């Protein structure tokens, strides 16, 4: 990969990041629109978690990864701090892989 390709990607990603606030500043943001946009981001983030936990490189990610995310999610639901969530999720996935469960 060349520096030119990296710069092109950097500019492209920046423009995508810029597009949201620019579109936002062009419309009159009512409370309903505000609610809708926040929900939209939550929906995308939730879908990112689910697809990221189950898919890797175009196929099923194996059981260890979703199991770790699930353990982290359950702890978060029980109001555990992020630190605990991170360690528990990573440890679950790592131990399952160590045990030979992909």
């Amino acid at each position, binding site marked *: *990969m060349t520096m030119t390709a990296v710069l092109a990607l950097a500019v492209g990603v920046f423009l995508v990041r810029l597009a949201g606030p620019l579109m936002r500043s062009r419309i009159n943001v009512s409370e309903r629109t505000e609610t809708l946009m926040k929900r939209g981001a939550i929906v995308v983030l939730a879908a990112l978690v689910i697809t990221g*936990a189950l898919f890797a490189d175009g196929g099923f990610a194996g059981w260890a990864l979703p199991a770790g995310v699930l353990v982290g999610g359950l702890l978060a639901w029980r109001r555990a701090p992020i630190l605990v969530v991170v360690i528990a999720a990573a440890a679950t996935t*790592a131990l399952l892989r160590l045990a030979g469960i992909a």
Partner: protein
Amino acid sequence: MRARNGLTALIGRDLLRDTAAYSVGIAVAGASFAALATAQGLPWWITLAMSMLVYAGTAQFAAIGVAAAGGGPAAVLATGLILNLRHLPYGMAVGHLYWDRWWTRLLGTHNLLDTTTAFALAEADPRRARIAYWTTGAGNFAASAAGNVVGIAAGRQIADPAALGLDAALPAIVLALVLPSLKEKSTLLAALTGAAIALAASPFLPAGIPVLLALAGLVFAWPSGETEPEEAER
């Protein structure tokens, strides 16, 4: 010292602790990216430039993956951009938090990530949301830079992030941050529908598109005329 205490008080211990926990994960991810990229023959300065300028972990890993598989610049660019289209709804949701001066707009735009968005959305109070956005962003930047330097120096000796289970850590953080918002029934319904759509689409579409299709779930969460109590103040 007083200024430092003031900053700590402003940010709050919980957020500092969360940022630290999250940054450790980002540092290891950055190190593994840099180790992988340089092992593939990418010069160290291009590796570092990519991490600091593209500044989007999933797109970076995907880009070097495509390049390693023999993809040309156009394929690299397309893969990276499609993966990052999700930043569009993120920017619409949190863009107002940094849309003040030209330099906060510039830095804030660069700072738009899955996690900074999720941390900001997890705060109901707009002032706390701003603090969360910048604090987690600063942690992410420092951790990513430090991780890259370590990864470049250590090269292939770096631990395999998969063996450490780190690929589970970031989705778990984002999940923890969106959970409180899912207490709202309509948001939960929209998120579940969206996730189902994204899952069904994932085997067929390039990564990055399915999570956008999830937005169709919003038909179940279209705010009606009534105002919900939590957003009464603006």
